[in-house]
């Protein structure tokens, strides 16, 4: 017999064990909760509040959330990867359970009864014979500034009353009434406004600049130039915008980097210097011999975050100390890169979070933090606010990398899969700040002493991967080999965008599954189920198919149905999507029917909102989006040249949650992306009898496929 491993602290308590860092009980009758995870429009603060309220036995209204700051908050890394519920939620649950125990022990001592006889309701502690006290009375005498102990038992799922039920988002009313909740608005009055002049193309160097026209604009406080970084600081936002435009007009630049060939991205990707790595391999001896091989190639373009709000930050220098207010996903990571740029100690920088517009990955939020810090040096002691233009947001934030994928399957004479080979070519999906020796903030590449723009890497597959995220199929194939070819040059800056490589990989895998099923004459759902061993995977596929009335839908001309399935990162949520698509002059996704298993559900409506939003955003990526460029510059830097899905184009979405109380709670933010694009591609093939292999799935490409057939 082996002894069970000793219990461990859950989630981010491992790296931030001090309980007092997570919560503080105030004698005035409230609890201050300090998550290191941040609100990016996904509703995480509400879900974490639910968990804390439940476990600590206080009403949610008593919980006050402290904005994450490097001055005090636990370091929870980056708010990304659909990990907040897992890593922060589990830490908060444990911290609250242990703190509750500490308060009960203190109450027991004071009241002279056994702690097991005490109950807590909304902070009021009661025991036999009407003895009573409260958290608030005990707040000053109970010390929770101690390290968490492993093995604390949290409440059983059935005993939870708040977590598990839909709760209204705490941040919504202020946003609906136009009150000051966004960083764009909270720090607005009394600040100076900064703007940056961007080069015409990536890598271009400033040759000359005439400041005369800009200096003539009323309200100019400073013009800042450091190498090819040029910016302006002004008393008003409009003056800053006008001065920036005047400076831009006067500037001359060298040519920049040569950009890829937009019209032949697959060839371009494959012909770069590459680092090739087999990321997964399996060989099982089988008696059947391959009768034939089938090979297909897929591509996706570079895509943009395209947040409706532009990136914004405020910075202030006080002597040698720097304060930055930011809506980035990782305050400690940004602090690390700012310290590298300015050659200063991290302890002299405080980075504090404020909410921004929707964030779907590593966008310009970190970059604008450096912009504001560089410009604020020209106005010591003053807060300087910088907000990017639309052209900066769509043209200069990191993009999701273009990808090429080749899938080859050896089939036996019955058409079944014997071996599966999957090769992908892509830039790295991770150039986030705070992870290397060299900063990855945009303006750092343009300073007098520039930092090198190093090609992005990928996280290891064991923690979710990057380009290879979900490249390993969920299906039971006898043999398979998955190879990731990472580009070692990066003329177009790339990083993490919602679901990373999973979007293209699931599109390719699920398209291929349909191609093989169709050739065999087998129903795509039945074919998948035959290759899925995981019961929870089967359950979502079956639920989505059942709810969409799969196989029994009325057939209409030009209308098709398709299914897509993936378990996000092969570690997270299980999700299956059935798409109903109408192909006419436009490609119209009429409806998406989704089944999802995120383990134990904390906030059902929050899960539906995330899955539905993810599916609609994925529809936009699937049908419309591509960053365009010529050999010198990005040309898709307005909404006209980078269109996204409109209200009249959004599909109806139905979400069925398969709740698993007691199972580990998983994130919902990214699970729908891959399955949605796959389902749409398969539905188009079902409708038209031809298949599109390149994203986005446009009417032109469908027509070209029909003509080629």
């Amino acid at each position, binding site marked *: 017999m082996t002894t069970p491993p000793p219990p461990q602290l859950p989630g981010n308590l491992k790296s931030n064990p001090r309980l007092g860092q997570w919560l503080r009980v105030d004698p005035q009758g409230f609890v201050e909760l300090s998550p290191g995870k941040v609100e990016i429009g996904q509703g995480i603060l509400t879900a974490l509040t639910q968990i804390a309220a439940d476990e600590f036995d206080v009403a949610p209204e008593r919980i006050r959330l402290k904005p994450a700051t490097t001055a005090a908050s636990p370091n929870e890394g980056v708010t990304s990867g659909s990990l907040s519920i897992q890593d922060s939620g589990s830490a908060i649950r444990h911290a609250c359970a242990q703190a509750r125990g500490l308060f009960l022990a203190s109450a027991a001592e004071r009241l002279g009864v056994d702690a097991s006889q005490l109950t807590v309701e909304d902070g009021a502690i009661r025991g036999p014979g009407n003895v009573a006290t409260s958290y608030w009375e005990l707040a000053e005498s109970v010390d929770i500034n101690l390290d968490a102990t492993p093995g604390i038992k949290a409440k059983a799922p059935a005993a939870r009353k708040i977590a598990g039920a839909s709760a209204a988002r705490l941040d919504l009313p202020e946003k609906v009434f136009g009150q000051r909740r966004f960083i*764009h608005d909270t720090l607005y009055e009394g600040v100076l406004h900064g703007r940056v002049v961007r080069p015409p193309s990536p890598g271009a160097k400033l040759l000359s600049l005439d400041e005369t026209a800009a200096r003539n604009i009323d309200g100019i406080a400073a013009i800042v130039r450091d190498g090819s970084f040029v910016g302006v600081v002004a008393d008003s936002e409009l003056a800053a915008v006008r001065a920036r435009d005047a400076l831009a007009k006067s500037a001359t630049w060298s040519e920049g980097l040569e950009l890829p060939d937009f019209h032949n991205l697959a060839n371009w990707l494959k012909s770069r210097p590459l680092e090739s790595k087999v990321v997964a391999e399996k060989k099982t001896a089988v008696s059947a011999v391959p009768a034939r091989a089938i090979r297909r190639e897929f591509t996706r373009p570079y895509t943009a975050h395209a947040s409706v709000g532009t990136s914004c930050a405020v910075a202030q220098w006080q002597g040698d100390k720097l304060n930055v207010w930011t809506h980035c996903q990782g305050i400690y990571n940004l602090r690390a890169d700012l310290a590298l740029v300015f050659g200063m100690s991290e302890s002299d920088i405080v980075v504090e979070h404020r909410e*921004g517009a929707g964030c779907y990955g590593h966008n310009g939020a970190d970059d604008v933090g450096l912009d504001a810090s560089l410009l604020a040096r020209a106005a010591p002691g003053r807060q300087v606010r910088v907000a990017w233009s639309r052209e900066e947001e769509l043209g200069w934030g990191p993009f999701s990398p273009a990808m090429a994928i080749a899938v080859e399957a050896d089939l036996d004479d019955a058409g079944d899969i014997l071996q599966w080979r999957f090769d992908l070519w892509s830039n790295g999906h991770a150039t986030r700040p705070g992870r290397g020796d060299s900063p990855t903030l945009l303006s750092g590449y343009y300073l007098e002493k520039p930092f090198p723009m190093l090609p992005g890497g990928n996280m290891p597959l064991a923690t979710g991967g990057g380009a290879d995220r979900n490249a390993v199929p969920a299906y039971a194939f006898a043999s398979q080999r998955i190879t990731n070819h990472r580009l070692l040059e990066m003329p177009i800056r790339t990083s993490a965008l919602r679901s990373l490589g999973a979007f293209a990989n699931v599109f390719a895998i699920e398209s291929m599954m349909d191609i093989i099923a169709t050739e065999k004459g087998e129903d795509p759902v039945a074919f998948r189920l035959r290759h899925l061993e995981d019961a929870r995977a089967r359950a979502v596929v079956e639920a989505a198919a059942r709810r969409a009335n799969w196989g029994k839908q009325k057939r209409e001309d030009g209308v098709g149905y398709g299914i897509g399935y993936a378990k996000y990162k092969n570690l997270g949520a299980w999700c299956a999507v059935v798409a109903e698509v109408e192909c006419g002059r436009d490609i119209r996704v009429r409806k998406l029917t989704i089944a999802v298993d995120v383990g134990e559900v904390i906030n059902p409506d929050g899960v539906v909102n995330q899955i539905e939003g993810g599916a609609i955003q994925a529809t936009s990526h699937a049908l419309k989006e591509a960053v365009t460029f010529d050999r010198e510059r990005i040309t898709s830097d307005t909404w006209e040249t980078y269109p996204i899905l409109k209200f009249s184009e959004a599909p109806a979405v139905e979400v069925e949650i398969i709740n698993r109380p007691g199972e580990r709670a998983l994130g919902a933010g990214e699970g729908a992306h891959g399955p949605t694009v796959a389902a749409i591609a398969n539905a188009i093939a079902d409708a038209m009898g031809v298949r599109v292999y390149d994203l986005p799935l446009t009417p032109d490409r469908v027509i070209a496929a029909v003509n080629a057939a």
Partner: protein
Amino acid sequence: MSDTIQLTVNGGSRSINCDPSSPLLYVLREQCGLTGTHFGCGLNQCGACFVLVDGQPLASCDTPMWSVAGKSVVTVEGLGSPGKPHPLQTALIEEQALQCGYCISGIQISAAALLEKNPDPTDKDVREALDGNLCRCGAHNRIVRAVRRAAEAMREGAKA
């Protein structure tokens, strides 16, 4: 280049000293302290900065001050407040209709203008009325439901 421009903002008359070519957006935010109206693109392509000008939704990023002299401007703050919410605001919260919420001020403006003209819009009517507003989070369907819910509440209110 400065001039004084008279207009009505959220029901109150204002005299604004500004360059007449200044976009209304910056005047609302910087001089009137009304930061609920958001910058999105500066090119009238996204709807984030919509305000009502004499009842019509207009992109304030692209509307020079001289063109609103003597007119009535309503921003999201003028639609309602926590104490006296517009039915749209009540419905948006009831439907939990947003994710990040950055676009929602401008969407309320388009929706308010629609409901003024059409008290009983279909799903399609609402979507068409909101096509000038971009939402990136994918909250479209919830927002459409909220607008129709507000329409119903307003019709009920009118009957009562």
